[in-house]
């Protein structure tokens, strides 16, 4: 198809509604996304997807990230939106770097484990060290072994 505008995701209200609905659950951890923050995150999502040359057909990865990370001891209301934004960016970047070999849930699970563990809440460390090694191993086909080498990270 000549016109490739269809590859660029657009904002949609369903995703916004889902993010707002997630507040109900995250409230118990003292985390809440305002409507402006949610809209901002969704706008960022569109830009990230464009930058990473990816297209998303469903509701997006944000709700999954929210539910996975909301109970992290390193996330609190002040850094909630920023962290989510970064995590979203890292997620799509590493989907590409792992050559789409890792399912969403597995990647999020690993990110959460590392974020709460060795990274101690540092998104930069997660991006540059933990996920870097994970992606490299995935590309080399050592997917089943990364858990064994966890201590090295």
């Amino acid at each position: 198809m000549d016109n490739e505008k269809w590859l660029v995701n657009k904002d949609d209200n369903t995703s916004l509604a889902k993010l707002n609905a997630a507040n109900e659950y995250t409230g118990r951890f003292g985390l809440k996304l305002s409507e402006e923050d949610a809209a901002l995150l969704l706008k960022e999502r569109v830009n990230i997807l464009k930058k990473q040359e990816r297209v998303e057909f469903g509701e997006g990865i944000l709700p999954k990230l929210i539910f996975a990370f909301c109970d992290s001891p390193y996330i609190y209301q002040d850094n909630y939106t920023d962290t989510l934004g970064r995590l979203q960016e890292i997620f799509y970047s590493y989907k590409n770097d792992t050559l789409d070999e890792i399912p969403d849930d597995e990647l999020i699970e690993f990110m959460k484990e590392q974020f709460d563990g060795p990274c101690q809440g540092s998104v930069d460390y997660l991006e540059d060290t933990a996920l870097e090694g994970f992606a490299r191993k995935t590309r080399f086909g050592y997917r089943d072994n990364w858990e064994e080498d966890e201590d090295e990270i």
Partner: protein
Amino acid sequence: MKYSQEELIPVVAKLAARYTSNESTSISYDKARQLMGAVIYCIEEYENAAAGLRDLVTEYSAVSADTAYGQGYELLIEKVKKIQQEYNLMMKEFQYYGNRCCYDTFQKGMPGFFLYYDARFHPMNHILTLDYPVLVSLEPRCGADLMEVYVRSACLEQSFLQKLPEKYIMHVLSAYSDDYPELIINLASIVLRNVLGCRIAGKSIDINGYSPVEMERLKLFISGKTREELEEQLKKYIDELMDFAYEKNEELGNYLKEDMRNFSFELQHGLNYNCFQAMLAV
């Protein structure tokens, strides 16, 4: 295609979900392009079939993109099965006359297509490089459409060659080049040129070489004719050949005629530079 991008995107989304087994919410641009290509390919398959059947046309106008894709996919599967049947039939008496490219392409390579062709996610990819050159142009076809033409061409070539004595074919190929087993060449084309050369020179194909008189006849035939006239005349000889030895096989005749444009150029070139030996495989 009558469907807009907006109608196609939900079909692509469904296919993407199937591709990722619902384990990924996003896919790369490359993969999205590939899946969009797959959807368009199947819908076009459906449209082409619908265009050929009048009673389907009214139905077709009301069909959604998703249904058209589904039906196109079924048609594609049927098409691949037919190609495989035709290929299997051809391979029963397949002869490659010592040419490695012909052997590798059909005997070794072709089963790979039937094993690995992905009609669901990548129907445009016919997998093989198809090194053996056939006489018809394969562009802009791709996927099963291309393979359909390619296998049909190979079947026609085999039916053409198998009517001729194997010894004669081997002699012509050796005369064309001692390296013919290793060359990437169209076997039917070389043999056909020799047969037509004999027809023009008025000699029997079982006699090797051309006498000076026969060579003169050949030159006389070419000189004074434009390239288009030569091509027309050669096509008439092919019709004669089909009537005489191939039960008026029009399909085979039309296939062989595809080579006459090149051959007419070469004949003129042969006259100008006196190099008939090489082009007629004498």
